[in-house]
């Protein structure tokens, strides 16, 4: 199949591209950032520029994986909104115009938000409750909902909105990996929420399943059952520091603590867990990696004394 991946130079998207390429698909990448060692043809264009539409026309993809979203909260807000909202609309316009068969939107489980009184296992139809305390997520939530609206706007096209849990793995990148890579990994005193994460390779397999199964609908995608943050930190052999909430908020970004957004503190205070039963039932997906394999795949190359390079740019607070 001919598959176009937007945001292909992104961290998780690179793995997607490689997996789909190795599975024998004809993959084309699109990103405004460079990816020199890409194994597939890359078009270095901005989604909102004319050239992007040309890529859609020239490639005539059967499947589009829309993975171009800015999740770093540190980025300029107007750019985030431009890419996440206007960009998503543009992608779906092109898909419709060039008769793409299936579009897969790469979403995140942080859509639901971490709140004190939310149910532990979020079903796909749960509302995004986190905006009250974490308004910075609004554009990601809106992009997710907009993609979902394609299910009735363009019934002739198959649309899958996949809300992935945190990914961990050898790339050592991603929201959770960055958080864990900080010189000191903070916890809020008296709280130890459940964290849900999956191996990068499993995320790729899940995406391939969604494409092969021509999945239509909104789905949570998860790996093994969740673990408390303390167990996650302990098993990845990271140095942990427990601070009262007020002190933690005041010291974010200092003393080796990660540069979290203050509103993201709720994500290390309250559990955010999704129910992926619908996705498993629809695709037959079974994660290959358990909790500990996944953590070790990430932490093997990390030592407490030598945090990885990504620790320096760990401002990716968006859960």
């Amino acid at each position, binding site marked *: 199949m001919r598959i176009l991946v937007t945001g292909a130079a992104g961290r998780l998207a690179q793995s997607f591209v490689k997996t789909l390429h190795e599975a024998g698909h004809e993959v084309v990448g699109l990103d405004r950032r460079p990816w020199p060692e890409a194994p597939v043809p890359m078009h270095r264009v901005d989604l909102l520029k004319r050239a992007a539409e040309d890529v859609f026309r020239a490639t005539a993809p059967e499947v589009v994986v829309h993975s171009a979203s800015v999740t770093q909260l540190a980025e300029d807000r107007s750019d985030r909104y431009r890419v996440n909202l206007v960009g998503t609309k543009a992608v779906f316009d092109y898909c419709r115009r060039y008769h793409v068969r299936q579009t897969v939107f790469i979403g995140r489980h942080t859509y639901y938000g971490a709140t*004190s*009184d939310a149910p*532990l296992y979020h079903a796909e139809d749960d509302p995004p409750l986190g905006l009250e305390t974490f308004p910075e997520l609004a554009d990601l939530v809106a992009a997710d909902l907009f993609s979902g609206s394609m299910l009735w706007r363009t019934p002739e096209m198959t649309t899958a909105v996949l809300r992935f849990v945190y990914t961990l793995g050898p790339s050592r990148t991603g929201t959770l990996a960055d958080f864990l890579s900080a010189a000191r990994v903070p916890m809020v005193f008296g709280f130890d929420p459940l964290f849900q994460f999956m191996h990068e390779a499993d995320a790729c397999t899940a995406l391939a399943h969604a494409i092969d199964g021509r999945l239509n609908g909104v789905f949570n995608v998860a790996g093994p059952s969740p673990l408390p943050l303390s167990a996650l930190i302990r098993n990845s052999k990271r140095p942990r520091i427990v601070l009262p909430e007020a002190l933690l908020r005041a010291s974010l970004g200092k003393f080796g603590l990660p540069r979290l957004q203050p509103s993201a503190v709720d994500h290390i205070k309250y559990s955010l867990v999704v129910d992926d039963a619908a996705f498993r039932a629809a695709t037959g997906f079974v994660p290959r990696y358990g909790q500990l394999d996944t953590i070790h795949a990430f932490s093997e190359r990390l030592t407490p004394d030598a945090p990885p390079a990504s620790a320096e740019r760990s401002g990716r607070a968006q859960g």
Partner: protein
Amino acid sequence: MVYRAGVFGFDRADIEGRLARLELPFGPSGYDAYGTSREALGAAFRWLRPIYQNYFRVRCHGIEHVPLRTRAMLVPNHSGGVGIDATMTICACFFELEPPRLAQGMADRFLNRLPLASLIASRTGQLTGLPEHAARLLEDERLLLVFPEGARGTAKLFSERRTVASFPLGFMRLAMQTNTPIVPVAILGAGEALPTVANLERAGRWFGVPYLPLTPYLLPWPLPARFELYFGEPLWFTGTGHEDSDEVRSNVERVRAAIESLLDAGAAKYRVV
């Protein structure tokens, strides 16, 4: 039941054995899908054992009515200010049932916002009382502990300790929907252990709780009153859970009446020492 005496009047190996026989699907890292930790349960029950056995000297009657492997809902009366009745019921199911079971309480929402309380509740399988949690646990064939009176129950004054406040309908709709038997439970002793003379709501708000119970000796510290737990025969209700309120309410009243009759029968024999 006779316990082999250990250092604190109980046997550590007995708790380890019970923990091993607890039929919960713990993953390789020792946690179940809800974050319940085997290790934390062990620590909690080691700590609670002398309180259960030597401080409140809990006596159980009819605990054989609690199903050993299938879904069930324990529905007791509530009193005693700080949830000691819930804790003792959880202990009873762990220490007296064979194989032991973990009763999973449906905690008040404020608990999850309190440091430590949130942590302890979550590691010991005590989730926030949301219908989604209850339904999920029952589908997993767990043993649910539900106090329909909620905070109105714990807030009873000493003079009201033997009364049962009105029950909302939610737990019954859920029981009908999931075809879950309800085991009525009467708990005597909690009201005596924490004789509440007033509830301080404003002071409670400073601590993030609904109220602070005030006792004649001021502190909300439970006295060593004897606890008697009476478990009644399981009650089954048929239906979809979507019936109109009158029909559901008549089922709820059956549960309430069963608890009241256990409570009255127990109260006639109850001695606080």
